[in-house]
């Protein structure tokens, strides 16, 4: 393994441009003559549109076009599809109301786009948008997840009586019932998984261009994979042949799941570019991004656990209400169902499990994937409920977990919800984490904190998640005669460092200089196919495809080398970038072979037979100021099992970033819609609290390599882990800190205000 091979923490290829300001993000460099789109959005959470009058706006200076739902209909532009529809548990189809690109007749959340103004300058577009007259007849709105199903709640869709979009279940309800009936104790906890505004630092943006000569459209957009975007936009929305639309993604300033989707602004800009025959650009203002990006999470879940007389958990039952927002987003219903549902057994030996979710409509922004997508919701519910159960039973939560772990000897292990964990050593990671966190010294630290007026708590969470399932990925390698190698792949870097990681895999296996490897992503014209980035699939699946393509390339080159060296292929060895006749010093470098062949090209794909199951233990030590309620994370330790590690520095980056988001969710980030008016109150970075530099502790992170048995590289995927493990670890620590006061649960985010109120209620405030 060379200096740039697998397992090395080498610095990133991407940095050369990103650190010097030469990154190229979607809005870096609109072409000359570009027109600007501005969207008029609903100021009401729920209203009927009586009329829409653009006459005045159309006559404003600089206005080129105004598009409304009517124009789009006339142009044959279809609704935004939801690609993951399910059946209800009774077998009937779910409610699937169409989501028009621009609202017609009704608006259903604050920020719902109603019209687009395209003008010479952003100012002109904005001024004109302000003169569009929309006569709204406001209706009562419902924003609260827990109340959406109430009979008296305002109704959003006629096709979804009671605001119920989908009633879905998995697992064996009967088997669970039996175990509950026989249980020694049943413990039940209801918890809120708070709504998150994704807030990548780069807001969404797009540039649409049209070439009348070829009748082709090009969309430059921050995505998580250009092919999915191309397919849906072309086939479902614009209804044009796929090859008539090229989608390009350049640098992406953070995505976290949210930039996978087709949003209304994209087809509108494309259509505008087509009719105006000019490039059209749109960039979301931060406020727009708050209002009109898809949000994440937003579940209210009741979890019950059956425990036998020996303190063994036998069955788990979870029942969730998941807020989907006002419309079905692209994969909205997938998140609370199939994406996370099968993880409701965690790392424990439950004999039976059942999960039911009722997905509801509300007058809020559509909800879809956010870092972890469904799995954090499951992990939070399981790890909070297990902790809660242990405490209610008077057990030590750590010992209780240990007793109920799936033991390493049981691997591969089939869970009660049907997944097969290929590998994992939960006790080993738990021990490693406890040792690093110096849990032995916790009691002393707690005493010292108490003397200083702070309540110290210890929270442990052992998460497991599922990555890299499903669809294949293809990689194409092009080794040119000059020795430079290009890798074409359909995943999409959003900051994870794919260029570096893939180049490392190639450098490692082909023995080529790291600097000579170029990774090409993000252009449907250059890359034949792809499933994009999401669910931490890029390294496990994309990386495996790269590996296989590399192996094919070597095999092909080996044949050429055999000819050139005049030896039998079977006598040709390959190491460190050179072929040689076994047992001799006659050698030829791969580059020489490629040069002689006038270049080599190979591709291969990888389709995983099974998903991977990264897992790990988080230990959070957190103190609460008894006078003010301010929580502070004193120590944070993580030990993960991601299988084989490609680049430790990239890995640590993924973990740290995930932790920051998980801690943000647990302590800071609170999305508030006014229950009466449905206005988004936390609609700016001033009002919505993203973690800042001094909100986060230093993280102590380590990993244990337990290779994945179903992946050729042995990797498991690491992109989401931090955001999955942190919320339960933090809240378990909060609850531990307050346990002496009879507090059993605290909902996220555990803000100082919420904690102060609790301290006050239980008489724990330091006066």
């Amino acid at each position, binding site marked *: 393994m060379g200096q740039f091979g697998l397992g090395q923490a080498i610095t990133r290829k991407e940095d050369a441009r990103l650190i010097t300001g030469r990154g190229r993000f979607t809005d870096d460099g609109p072409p000359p003559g570009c027109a600007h789109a501005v969207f008029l959005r609903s100021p009401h959470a729920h209203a009927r549109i009586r009329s829409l009058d653009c006459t005045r706006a159309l006559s404003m200076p600089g206005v080129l076009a105004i598009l409304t739902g009517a124009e789009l209909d006339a142009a044959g532009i279809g609704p935004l599809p939801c690609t993951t529809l399910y059946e209800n548990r009774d077998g009937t189809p779910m409610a699937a109301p169409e989501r028009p690109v621009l609202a017609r007749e009704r608006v259903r959340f604050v920020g719902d786009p109603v019209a687009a103004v395209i003008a010479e300058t952003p100012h002109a577009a904005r001024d004109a948008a302000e003169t569009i007259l929309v006569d709204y007849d406001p209706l009562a709105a419902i924003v609260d997840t827990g109340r959406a199903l109430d009979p008296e709640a305002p109704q959003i869709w006629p096709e979804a009586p009671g605001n119920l979009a989908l009633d879905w279940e998995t697992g064996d309800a009967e088997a669970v019932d039996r175990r509950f009936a026989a249980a020694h104790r049943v413990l039940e906890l209801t918890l809120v998984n708070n709504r998150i505004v994704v807030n990548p630092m780069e807001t969404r943006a797009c540039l649409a261009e049209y070439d009348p000569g070829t009748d082709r459209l090009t969309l430059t957009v921050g995505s998580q994979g250009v092919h999915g975007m191309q397919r849906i936009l072309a086939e479902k929305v614009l209804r044009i042949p796929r090859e008539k639309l090229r989608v390009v993604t350049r640098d992406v300033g953070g*995505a976290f799941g949210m930039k996978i989707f087709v949003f209304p602004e994209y087809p509108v800009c494309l259509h505008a570019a087509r009719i105006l025959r000019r490039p059209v650009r749109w960039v979301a203002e931060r406020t727009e991004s708050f209002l009109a990006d898809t949000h994440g999470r937003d579940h209210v879940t009741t979890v019950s656990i059956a425990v036998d007389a020996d303190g063994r958990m036998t069955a788990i039952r979870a029942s969730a209400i998941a807020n989907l927002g006002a419309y079905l987003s692209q994969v909205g219903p997938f998140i609370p169902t199939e994406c996370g549902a099968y993880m409701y057994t965690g790392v424990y030996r439950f004999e039976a499990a059942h999960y039911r979710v009722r997905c509801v409509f509300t007058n809020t922004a559509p909800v879809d994937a956010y870092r972890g997508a469904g799995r954090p919701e499951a992990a939070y519910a399981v790890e909070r409920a297990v902790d809660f159960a242990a405490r209610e039973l008077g057990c030590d939560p750590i010992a209780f977990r240990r007793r109920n772990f799936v033991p390493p000897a049981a691997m591969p292990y089939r869970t009660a919800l049907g997944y097969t964990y290929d590998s994992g050593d939960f006790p080993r990671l738990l021990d490693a984490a406890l040792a690093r966190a110096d849990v032995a010294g916790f009691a002393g630290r707690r005493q010292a904190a108490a003397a200083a007026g702070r309540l110290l708590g210890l929270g442990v969470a052992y998460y497991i998640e599922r990555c890299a399932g499903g669809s294949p990925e293809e990689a194409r390698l092009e080794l040119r005669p000059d020795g430079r190698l290009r890798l074409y792949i359909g995943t999409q870097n959003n900051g994870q460092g794919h260029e570096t990681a893939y180049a490392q895999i190639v450098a490692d296996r082909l023995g080529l200089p790291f600097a000579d490897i170029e990774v090409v992503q993000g252009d449907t014209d250059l890359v034949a196919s792809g499933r994009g980035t999401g669910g931490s699939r890029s390294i496990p699946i994309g990386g495996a495809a790269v590996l296989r393509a590399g192996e094919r390339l070597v095999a092909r080159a080996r044949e050429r080398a055999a000819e050139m060296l005049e030896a039998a292929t079977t006598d040709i060895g390959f190491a460190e970038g050179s072929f040689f006749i076994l047992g001799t010093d006659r050698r030829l470098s791969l580059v020489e072979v490629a040069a002689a062949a006038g270049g080599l090209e190979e591709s291969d794909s990888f389709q995983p037979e099974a998903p991977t199951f990264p897992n790990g233990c988080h230990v959070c030590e957190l103190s609460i100021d008894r006078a003010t309620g301010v929580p502070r994370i004193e120590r944070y330790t993580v030990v993960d099992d991601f299988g084989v590690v490609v680049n430790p520095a990239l890995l640590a*980056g993924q973990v740290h970033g995930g932790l920051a988001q998980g801690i943000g969710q647990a302590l800071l980030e609170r999305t508030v819609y006014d229950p009466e008016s449905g206005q988004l109150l936390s609609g700016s970075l001033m009002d919505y609290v993203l973690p800042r530099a001094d909100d986060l502790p230093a993280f102590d992170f380590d990993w244990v390599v337990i290779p994945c048995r179903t992946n050729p590289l042995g990797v498991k995927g690491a992109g989401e882990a931090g955001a999955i493990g942190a919320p339960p670890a933090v809240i378990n620590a909060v609850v531990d800190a307050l346990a002496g006061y009879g507090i059993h649960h605290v909902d996220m985010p555990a803000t100082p205000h919420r904690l102060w109120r609790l301290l006050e209620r239980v008489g724990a405030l330091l006066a």
Partner: protein
Amino acid sequence: MRRRLRFVLGSEPRELGEVEPTLTVLEYLRRIEHRRGTKEGCAEGDCGACTVLVGRPVEGRMCYRAVNACILFLPMLDGCRLLTVEDLRAPDGSLHPVQRAMVEAHASQCGFCTPGFVMALYALYRERGVARETPIAEWLAGNLCRCTGYGPILEAAQRMHAVAQGADHLEAREAETVARLESWQDGETLAVGREGRMFFAPADIGSLARLLIEHPDATLIGGATDVGLWVTKQHRRPHPLIWTGRVAELTRVEDTGDGLSIGAAATYRDVLDRLAALYPDAGRVIRRIGSVQIRNLGTIGGNIANGSPIGDSPPLLIAAGARLRLRRGNRCREVPLESFFLDYGRQDRRPGEFVEAVVVSGPGPGTLFRAYKISKRFDQDISSVFAAFRIDLDGGRIASARLAYGGMAPVPKRAELAEAALVGRPWKRQTVEAAMAALERDFTPIDDWRASAGYRMTVARNLLMKCWLESSGEIRRRLDLAAEVADG
């Protein structure tokens, strides 16, 4: 009148005749200069993705400040040097120590926030001495990153000095820039604009006064941290604009013997240490206004003149007994600061008049001064309630009391009934409790999304008690000390 705006971008001089007065530096960089390294993450001063450095010659050396390009109007660069992320690499293409430290620490992921962090760190790098006293996390409170969890960026900040070897390429050629910028200091009023929309930047107070009489409807700007948001968020395009930042008399902070005269255009940054020397608590709260970038731009004059009920410096200065000096033409008048605020959105400022300075005297031997900023988040947040108290004790009795609050009324306001409940009485718990009760009659706060009326009132009351609790120890110590000195 000078009709051309002059500044240096990186190493190249720029002279512009036609300028949209509210064109932001960010738009200018991205759209006109095609310098697209500087990013827009919010256009309201919250995220720092747009951080750039603005430098001025001060006593023969360049003095740089990190600022938010998204709310800074281009003509405010007059006579300055603007540095962006594109300027940091050496001419031979090698990375700057700050950038190298970022790479080595793996401090960039998606890279969108990165140029802003690089520039915020570069400001720290240039301010070595000064900045050492500030914790790095506080220095970076104005920069958001959604990817890295900040640890690696903090590490880069630690590492960058170690990576450095001597002066960087920008420092090495600084004399040239200083000479050029000094040669541009002409004392002329800058007047640039476009299609009749004008931006004026007078260089002396007389010209400012005259301009304002000529254009009584002009919008004055200090740091434009409020007015910038009118443009980027409310999409207003006020004009003409008159910028006070070049008016030498207004940017000064002068010693008056028993206190300070703070020019209306002095920034928080300029004022911080001086005011903190008089009233340490003032330093503590000013350090929490906005972020480093905002404090480098925002002025005390702007914070007062905007008349906001939740601005932090008005209650702070009212409690300190500050007086406001207003000027129209050659005529000045001074009013107690509290009387400047007439009603919500209405101040005692006449057409053609401007705020010249705020004059504040220092504490006396028996002065107790406390200021509290209550916001949901420690850094970079607007106050729900702000309270500042100046209590002068005369041998255990309260000789005078000034209790000023923000966020409790439509204007920053003194709690007169509570003050009356204190004066003449001993500084004791009972007295304070009586004053707390009186606060209920002084104020009828409102509910809004920042805080409920009940919360505001409870906090207002409790802050007074907190002040008493904190003071009892301190005052005793101070009085004892005074007694010792008298005895000796």
